[in-house]
């Protein structure tokens, strides 16, 4: 696994998970929408900060999240 990096993608706001766009095992490119959060009647996407494969989705739809919570892991 030399050279592999694990990226923990965090919620940038406190809100509710509205929609999960990627699942574990999906390949993603930088900028792809992983999860859409809703807070204060604003839908806000969380984008992949890098290309790779989604290894974990740590939230479910309608779940409340706090700013800084890890929502997705990309390997």
């Amino acid at each position, binding site marked *: 696994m030399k050279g592999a990096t694990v990226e923990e993608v965090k919620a*940038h*706001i*406190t*809100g*509710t998970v*509205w*929609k999960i766009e990627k699942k574990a095992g999906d390949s993603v490119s930088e*900028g792809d929408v992983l999860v859409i959060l*809703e*807070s*204060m*009647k*604003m*839908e*806000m*996407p969380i*984008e992949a900060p890098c290309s790779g494969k989604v290894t974990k989705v740590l939230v479910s739809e*309608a*779940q*409340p999240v706090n700013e800084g919570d890890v929502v997705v892991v990309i390997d």
Partner: protein
Amino acid sequence: MKAALLQALRTRHLGRECWFFDTLESTQTTAADYATKGAAHGALVWARVQTAGRGRMGRTWLSGDGSLCASVILRDGVDAGSAFQWSFVAGLALHDVITARIGPGAKLKWPNDVLIVEASGGARKVAGILCTLELQPHPAVIVGVGVNLGFDPVAHDPTLAGRAAPLPREDAGAWLAELLLQLERRADEHLRLGALHTLAETRARLAFVGEIASVKTAAGELRGRVLGLNDAFELRVEDEAGRAQTIAAADVWPAAAP
């Protein structure tokens, strides 16, 4: 209808580029798609009829004959970190237009729905907003607005009785022109005077302050006294044990009598 809008339009940017549809699933979905393809600041998507109007968290926004359904793309001054503040800017603009028409009975239901508060203490929603942030290719906030102009949602969904109401029917194009003007003015103020100005203006129009409310979050229902907004625009509620709680996402209504 589009001609009526263009004739009444007094904005610099908002609505100057306009796509009008007789029937559309959702102006918000279409405008978000146009935003990702690079549509300019102020571009407007407007439909006479929506067949799949969207509310928050995937809910349906009911509309029908007379409803105003439109979404406008804002780019100037938008960044991802403070994007949620535009949700309040839009609420203020909507409140401005409704207050100019019906007088002082309109209030903002946090974060940005507009209610008519009745003398009995009841409150019924007459207009709502849903915002969407798009980050690609450049940040944009899409402000989607639904206004019950002569349309009574209760006639289509009796479960909304006591919670929703129509506004007087009038020309949707002229109404939309006024809304775009007030939104442009509120957006200018927000950028010139800052978020604390928008916060103060919202606090001055907030519904249910000091009242016992039912606050429904993804984690459950909280019953308590509405204290107001903190400096992050979050709702502060004192629960029944006297503890102040901070709420970032919820649906707030007057609590039913115990």
